[in-house]
């Protein structure tokens, strides 16, 4: 009966109840949108990091990890030779979409008059595509996919590097790099296209070519690592364990590195966003709690004589307190229900509008405002609202506990 009375009590002052519901509803929507934005940012950043070339996992010789320079490797050239076999083994594992070799190198590119130093990344273009790593081409064409297709060696240049070299698609540039044994080599490469990494600074330095072409330049059969792309990011730990069992023993043990380890900034961004969200959440919770508490207190003051009567006819103070809690819970439930419906509509609308936000510092492209809301968000925000409103009911409850029946009955 108390829940019924509590629900009907909300209908007494409809304007005030509507205002309270609005507060709960707006608070709910605020938390929902923020949670959706934060999750979309996390997922977006995670996938951008993975699709941007990091892959879900990287397989590297254990000896290369922590070796800051060639001197640390005591004369052994970096990377590993039997990579094709390893790559094919990895590709036969469950949840693996594809695996591809990479070579990281550095050197100087020159276009006759001007030259510029670069950081080089060699990939297997066909496997990179299968892993879902799309090259953001700005001009020209991608690298040819067929390995050993013959013809001229081809490169993609970061837009900034191309600008520094004055190179355009179709131009031939000389690419020079130190080989693993310390000598210098240079080869002519045709600029297939210009691309962006999304980061201005990197665009000014990056050069991308195929593993085969890089191996010709560097005079080596070795590769730096094998990148593994999975069907689902969530399977990363599972595949990591499987690969660890498969590859980390033997005479030349390999290490498996997850994308999270390779992108420590992801964790930092997560922590930063997490604390911003917690801060905003606390403010929303405080505003909702204070507002509802104040409204409920007003409502209690208006009903002092009624509470006196209820106490006189045998209602315990605990039962009155329960009634107030029920009132708060009804507000939470109805407000959250309205918030869920409106919030869902708003999320759908915002996602449909494809709103662009200005690019963050050092980035090239604007960011699409996206909200990623999960069913669990509705549940936990509802839970949070319930707790916040229950807390808001505490001051009015204390007021009821202090009531003197005789005074209350005489209250006008």
């Amino acid at each position, binding site marked *: 009966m108390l829940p019924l009375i509590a629900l009907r009590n909300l209908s007494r002052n409809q304007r005030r109840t509507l205002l309270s519901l609005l507060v709960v509803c707006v608070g709910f929507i605020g938390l929902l949108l923020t949670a959706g934005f934060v999750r979309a940012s996390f997922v977006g950043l995670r996938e951008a990091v993975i699709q941007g070339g990091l892959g879900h996992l990287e397989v590297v010789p254990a000896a290369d990890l922590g070796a800051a320079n060639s*001197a640390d490797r*005591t*004369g052994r050239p970096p990377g590993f030779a039997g990579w094709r076999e390893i790559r094919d083994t990895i590709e036969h594992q469950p949840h693996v979409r594809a695996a591809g070799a990479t070579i990281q190198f550095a050197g*100087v590119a*020159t276009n*006759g008059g001007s*030259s510029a130093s670069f950081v080089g990344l060699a990939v297997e273009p066909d496997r990179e595509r299968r892993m879902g790593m799309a090259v953001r081409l700005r001009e020209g064409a991608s690298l040819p996919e067929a390995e050993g297709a013959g013809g001229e*060696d081809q490169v993609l240049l970061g837009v900034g590097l191309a600008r520094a070299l004055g190179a355009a698609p179709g131009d*031939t540039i*000389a690419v*020079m790099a*130190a080989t693993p*044994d*310390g*000598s*210098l*080599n*240079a*080869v*002519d490469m045709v600029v297939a296209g210009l691309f962006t990494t999304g980061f201005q600074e990197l665009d000014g330095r990056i050069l991308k070519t195929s593993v085969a072409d890089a191996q*010709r*330049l560097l*005079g080596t059969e070795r590769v730096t690592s094998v990148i593994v792309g999975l069907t689902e990011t969530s399977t990363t730990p599972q595949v990591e364990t499987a690969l660890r069992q498969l590859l980390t023993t033997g005479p030349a043990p390999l290490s498996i590195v997850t994308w999270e380890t390779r992108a420590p900034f992801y964790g930092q961004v997560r922590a930063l966003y997490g604390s911003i969200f917690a801060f905003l959440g606390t403010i929303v919770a405080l505003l909702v709690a204070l507002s509802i508490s104040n409204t409920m207190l007003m409502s209690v003051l208006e009903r002092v004589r009624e509470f006196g009567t209820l106490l006189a006819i045998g209602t315990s103070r605990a039962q009155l307190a329960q009634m107030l809690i029920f009132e708060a819970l009804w507000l939470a439930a109805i407000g959250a229900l309205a918030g869920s419906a409106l919030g869902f509509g708003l999320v759908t609308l915002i996602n449909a509008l494809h709103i662009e936000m200005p690019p963050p510092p050092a980035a090239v492209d604007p960011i699409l405002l996206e909200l990623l809301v999960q069913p669990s968000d509705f549940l936990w925000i509802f839970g949070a609202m319930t707790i916040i409103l229950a807390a808001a009911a505490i001051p009015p409850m204390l007021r009821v506990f202090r009531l003197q029946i005789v005074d209350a009955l005489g209250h006008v």
Partner: protein
Amino acid sequence: MMAGLRTLTAILIVLVVTRALAQGPDELLRRSDVGGFSPRSFRARLVLTSMPQGARHEIEVWRSGDTRTLIRFMDPKERGKFLLRLDSDVWLITPGAKKPVHLSPSYRLYGGATLDEILGIRLASAYQVESVSTGTDAGGALVVLELRAKAEGSLFPRVRYVVRETTERPVVATYRLRSGRDATAVEFLQWNERGLVYAKRLIVSDLLRKGAQTEVAILEVEARAIPDGLFSLTDPTARQALP
């Protein structure tokens, strides 16, 4: 007795150094300059050993006058690759690139030593003696010449040049950066005294990277005229015809 011996030794050193310097420090620099020993045109075979990896690389040097040098890489993997130096410009010529690729003159062969460090800077022409002091080591009396570059903007404005008094051969040349920091030390370990005089074995230490050393062994030096075609930037025919 011991005091007497020490006094005698000191007197002898002073006498010897005084004799060496009697002709002037600049003259000592000229006579000891390792570059000065080489003929104007020569072909030489060198083996460079990078430390601590111990990787050996053989190169062939073709030099004509002070301004033109061609380095031919002799390792099977590096056949067809050349380093061409014309005045202060250094070019890399590889079979993979149609045109020579311009390099910095401070480019280090196999990451270890620059061409100047291997072939010797013409110290006598590029530097002048600023101050002289003396010293000794296990091999005897030394003359220490502090040199200053004649040209403005030289990569190494100062060189500490230590010459063995008795042989007038350099012992060690330490190249200093504008900041005063020691950048490279070249130690002359062995000399060819029969026929052409040249340092047969030297060690180039990169003092900016601890432990990075290149040992240079000069296997042979042949004084001869070098065809101009070898130094052509545009026409590779003469280089391709090399045996």
